[in-house]
């Protein structure tokens, strides 16, 4: 009964979305206030209906109602409650419901908090959002109904892939979707602006917080996914350049570019059509990711059960949304007059460089991800494009991007003095050089490439701090005054510094984990000791035990260093009988400077065990760096200037005469 209610709510939501996607658009065109006014209540109603559908599906999972096909196929009565709930979106149908729910929630946010938007713009944004929702609701109802019944109901379900039964992965998809779907806001604003034929600073100011919010979610989602891959897949790696990973990384790169170009758009009233194009591309790449993951055109270690028929639907939708948007862009964008003038050496110029490198990086990932498919279609045979390709092409693009951040963020708007900025960065350069040389001299096994990574990270960190120190006049005024200035700095600018510092920490983490990583694979008997990078791992024993829905074989390791105990590690191999699938649970001991990582493999014939032992220096910095980026984004988001958009359009108009403020 409840499942039918959910299905019914989805159909009603589709009807509401159809109304919301048409009437306000026509109303805004004809300037009919009554039709424009439909948008807001429709968005609220639509969110409510999809909310009901989502709750109905959750109810079916929580109560293990196996008469619902989706629950029977993806859940099991013996599963812990957390995974019953995360099972809702651990499958294709349910994840699509979560997708539209998040879409509706963003729409709801615009309806409730977008009071300062001009009514016609708000109506158009909500209408574009609703049209996207129409596509996805149709997709769910026609091809992927999560509420389908099964008769007779099986006694128990087939269970959820045990790899997915993990707290990290329970929250990874929602984060990712909040990111993907969040970019639909930037998209909707872009389309609304193209229809209105007007892009101004106020428009950019409205778009920025939504983009920033989506970017924070996507960053957190990707980081969470990579952390999961690190501890769950048991190979010590955290990024595999897998098509599904790339599918989430492409919108991230485009979204990061959008974040920066929107600043230029807001502050200097230029780069308008480029920013619009980026907004379209970012969301289109999110849709493309959905397509790649669900259509089966590419193979991946972690794709959903795929179905080419669903692929055709999503592709048709992609063509409508992206093709339509780009066609509209081709017609309307030439009319968007460029605004502010500036010299190449300026903040604007630096952000153009930032956009160039990020977009080319995104295009490179795109090329590498889709090349095998296109080559095969063209009859050119099968190739694999893996990590070595991306390391050789993508990283060289990111190095200058990162290296230029300190310079770019110190250049003033309009016209800058490169020599002057470099002079102010002398100290940072010295610190970075000294750090790299010290590491090269002191840390054993440092290659020149690793020293380069350290140089890059230290340069960025020192540069960001120099810029911050300049803002608070550190050492020029007394410390208390500097502190007062720091506290009074706009949160957006502190957020920016924090996020850039996060990039530095991330670069350091990547460098450390790649350059000084040690791994040893061997067979060990109980009692045997193996030394890895100065740590002695002793296998004390192997035992069996039972978990709530699995049985496990676990190895006990004692780790010592120079005779002193460090930690005990208990890696496991689990078998989940419901799914008849083995998983590897690595044991990790994490500190700021290194991770100790142990994996128990299969028994050898003579009673010894295959073990894989890793020492991964600085690897935690990778996720801590991402955490700082997200933190910086959130801090920036909390800035009053982002929240209070109301008087802006006026202020910016008047501000045409005044000097552009940074």
């Amino acid at each position, binding site marked *: 009964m409840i499942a039918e209610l959910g299905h019914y709510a989805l159909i009603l939501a589709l009807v509401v979305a159809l109304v919301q996607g048409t009437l306000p658009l026509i109303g805004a065109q004809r300037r009919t206030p009554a039709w424009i006014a439909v948008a807001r209540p429709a968005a609220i109603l639509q969110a409510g209906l999809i909310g009901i559908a989502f709750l109905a599906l959750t109810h079916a999972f929580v109560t293990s109602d196996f008469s619902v096909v989706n629950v029977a196929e993806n859940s099991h009565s013996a599963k812990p409650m957390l995974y019953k709930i995360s099972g809702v979106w651990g499958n294709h149908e349910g994840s699509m419901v979560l997708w539209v729910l998040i879409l509706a929630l963003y729409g709801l946010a615009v309806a409730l908090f977008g009071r300062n938007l001009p009514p016609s713009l708000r109506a158009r944004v909500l209408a574009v959002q609703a049209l996207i929702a129409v596509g996805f609701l149709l997709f769910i109802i026609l091809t992927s109904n999560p509420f389908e019944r099964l008769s007779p109901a099986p006694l128990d379900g087939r269970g959820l892939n045990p790899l997915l039964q993990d707290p990290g992965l329970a929250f990874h998809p929602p984060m990712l979707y909040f990111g993907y779907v969040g970019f639909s806001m930037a998209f909707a604003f872009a389309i609304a602006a193209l229809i209105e034929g007007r892009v101004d600073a106020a428009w950019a100011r409205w778009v920025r917080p939504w983009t920033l919010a989506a970017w924070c979610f996507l960053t957190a989602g990707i980081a969470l996914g990579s952390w999961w891959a690190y501890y769950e897949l048991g190979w010590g790696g955290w990024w*595999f350049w897998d098509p599904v990973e790339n599918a989430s990384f492409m919108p991230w790169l485009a979204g990061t570019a959008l974040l920066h170009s929107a600043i230029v758009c807001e502050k200097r009233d*230029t780069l308008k059509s480029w920013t619009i194009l980026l907004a379209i591309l970012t969301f289109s790449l999110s849709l493309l990711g959905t397509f790649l993951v669900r259509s089966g055109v590419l193979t*991946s*270690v972690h794709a959903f059960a795929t179905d080419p028929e669903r692929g055709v639907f999503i592709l048709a939708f992609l063509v409508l949304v992206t093709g339509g948007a780009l066609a509209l862009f081709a017609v309307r964008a030439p009319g968007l007059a460029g605004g502010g003038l500036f010299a190449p050496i300026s903040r604007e110029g630096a952000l153009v460089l930032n956009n160039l490198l990020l977009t*080319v990086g995104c295009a490179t990932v795109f090329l590498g991800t889709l090349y095998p498919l296109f080559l095969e279609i063209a009859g050119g045979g099968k190739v694999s*494009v893996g990590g070595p*390709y991306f390391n050789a092409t993508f990283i060289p693009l990111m190095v200058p991007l990162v290296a230029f951040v300190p310079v770019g963020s110190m250049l003033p708007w309009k016209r800058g003095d490169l020599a002057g900025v470099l002079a102010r960065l002398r100290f940072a350069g010295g610190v970075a050089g000294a750090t790299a040389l010290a590491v090269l001299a002191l840390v054993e096994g440092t290659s020149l490439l690793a020293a380069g990574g350290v140089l890059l990270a230290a340069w960025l960190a020192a540069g960001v701090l120099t810029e911050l120190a300049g803002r608070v006049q550190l050492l020029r005024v007394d410390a208390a005054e500097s502190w007062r200035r720091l506290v009074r700095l706009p949160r957006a600018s502190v957020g920016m510094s924090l996020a850039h510092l996060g990039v530095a920490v991330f670069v350091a983490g990547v460098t450390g984990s790649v350059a000084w990583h040690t791994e040893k694979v061997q067979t060990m008997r109980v009692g045997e000791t193996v030394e890895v990078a100065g740590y002695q791992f002793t296998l004390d024993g192997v035992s069996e035990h039972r978990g709530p829905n699995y049985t496990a074989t676990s190895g006990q390791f004692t780790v010592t260093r120079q005779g002193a105990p460090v930690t005990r590690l208990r890696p496991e191999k689990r078998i989940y009988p419901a799914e008849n699938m083995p998983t590897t649970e690595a044991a990790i001991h994490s500190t700021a400077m290194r991770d100790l990582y142990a994996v128990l493999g*299969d028994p050898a014939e003579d009673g010894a065990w295959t073990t894989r032992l890793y020492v991964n220096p600085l690897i935690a910095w990778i996720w801590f760096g991402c955490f700082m980026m997200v933190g910086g984004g959130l801090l920036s988001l909390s800035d009053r200037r982002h929240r209070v958009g109301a008087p802006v359009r006026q202020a910016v*108009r008047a501000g045409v005469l005044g000097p552009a403020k940074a």
Partner: protein
Amino acid sequence: MMRARCLALVLVLLAAGARAETVLPDPASEARAVELHKSLRCLVCQNQSIHDSNADLAVDLRQIVRERVAAGESDAGVVDYVVRRYGDFVLLRPPVKASTYLLWFGPALILLAGATAAFRFLRRARAAGLGAPAPLSDQERRTLAALRDGREP
């Protein structure tokens, strides 16, 4: 279509029961072998290198690579051995040849095109900037007049 799906389900990939493997005693050789492992794709599990896979075939191939490294074969020789059996598909770093020119030189081409576009844009922005300032619009003129008169615009 149904068939393709059945096939994927029914085909038992060589993933069963990985055996213990022996590491080369010489750390330098082992390091070389590991680098080679990372460059070879595991055919059974999609998109992973044989270094990152527990599949039986991956374990066997790892062992073969080690044996050949220990026997003193060059990196190219070892890779060639695997490619002769499984084709270019096993190379995670595709070889540079006519069918992959676009893949390998594509990023540079895109960068060049992007840099050209950016350069033109920057030149336009500057050229306009170096000339006389753009004339005030009517709106701006009104605002200016209002400010001069000491009124709110």
